């Protein structure tokens, strides 16, 4: 059992690392897609399409084994973080983009009419609202990605699934139990994640504002 716990700790580390990458890159991509003009916008959209369309497995292999062809040795954790992180950024960018586009035009107009520059308006008015609107979709992404961390198994990361395999190799008859234990650990992980994000959403909620309306 302790082995499994050590394993899941790695999964959690990976989860937060890749979510961070995903958030950073995803936000940039979303902003580019909505505000970047035609060329940048299309590039951003293209990036999102490519990184959503390629299976996570393929990305993991490309990031882990690919560089070895050129003599670079990429540690599994880094490869997984980058591969899954960029993939998540593509999904997160779409969530954020939807939120940005859901904000009524009037908000930008009002900001500009006060004399705010476009950048200032985006930073002070649009983004704070978009972040709140994104929480629901982001919650889904969190669950989804938490489970995907197990895919790093194929690049040899010492995460929980690999630990389960090790148990299976040593104690054949405990195999099923080991896997069930892993499953339960993930159930706990996803539930607490959802719970935490739900609480965050409640805390950040603007009184009276539902996800649809844009306050007049």
């Amino acid at each position: 059992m302790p082995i499994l716990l050590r394993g899941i700790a790695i999964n959690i580390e990976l989860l937060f690392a890749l979510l961070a990458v995903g958030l950073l890159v995803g936000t940039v991509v979303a902003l580019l897609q909505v505000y970047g003009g035609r060329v940048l916008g299309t590039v951003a959209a293209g990036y999102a399409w490519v990184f959503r369309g390629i299976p996570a497995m393929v990305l993991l292999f490309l990031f882990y084994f690919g560089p070895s062809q050129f003599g670079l040795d990429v540690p599994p954790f880094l490869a997984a973080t980058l591969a899954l992180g960029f993939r998540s950024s593509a999904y997160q960018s779409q969530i954020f983009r939807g939120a940005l586009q859901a904000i009524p035009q009037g908000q930008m107009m009002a900001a500009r009419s006060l004399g705010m520059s476009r950048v200032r308006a985006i930073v002070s008015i649009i983004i704070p609202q978009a972040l709140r609107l994104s929480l629901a979709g982001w919650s889904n992404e969190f669950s989804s990605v938490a489970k995907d961390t197990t895919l790093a198994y194929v690049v040899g990361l010492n995460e929980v699934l690999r630990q389960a395999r090790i148990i299976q190799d040593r104690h054949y008859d405990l195999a099923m139990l080991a896997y069930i234990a892993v499953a339960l650990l993930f159930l706990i992980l996803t539930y607490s994640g959802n719970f935490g994000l739900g609480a965050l959403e409640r805390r950040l909620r603007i009184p009276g504002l539902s996800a649809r309306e844009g306050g007049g």
Partner: protein
Amino acid sequence: MGFDPAWLGPLGRGLILTLEITATCIVVGIVFGIILALGRVYGGRAVSILCSLYIQFFRGTPLLVQLLMIYYGLPSWGITLSPFLSGILALGLNTAAYQAEYLRGAIQAVEAGQLLAARSVGMTKLQAIRHIILPQAFRLVIPSWSNELILMLKYSSIVFSVTLLDLMGAAKRIVSANFAYTQVFLVVAAFYLALVFIITQLLRLLERRVRIPGLGTNAERP
């Protein structure tokens, strides 16, 4: 540093296997998903809870864990399944859970008045469900199910880890011989993207064919 055209043969066969697996598991998923959804919405208390537990388990745990559980775990309980069967089962059971949830949402989105109207015309509950609720629910659920299909196409790649020679498995086999990782996997990525593109377009056509004027599916595919 090139790509040997000879590799296209095995990759092509892998592609076909990928499609076979995806198609099969989707069918399993749809059939089982419908059963689960109906159980959840219309079954009695016990059935509903049972279905709910199943759904929560398969949605809350990683797909890869489910696959390995079936392929490596079950044998320790005396049940051994072939790689192909394990793959289909894992993917199918998993997608069934998601599809059940989507269908449940769709069924509940069909207005309550429809059921009342059907009953008042004299239909039994079963008839009402079969002829009135489900046809509408199915149309509402198409975007979500299309999404699931694409997702399954991509996730089918995990079956290589139980020795199946799908697109991913074939690729792995090739590179284990000659280490041309980048080229091969870039081509594989391109294959998947092409598949995703084609299937997305086909699904869009399907959606349009089946649409009822005025009855909105609230997700117009972005």
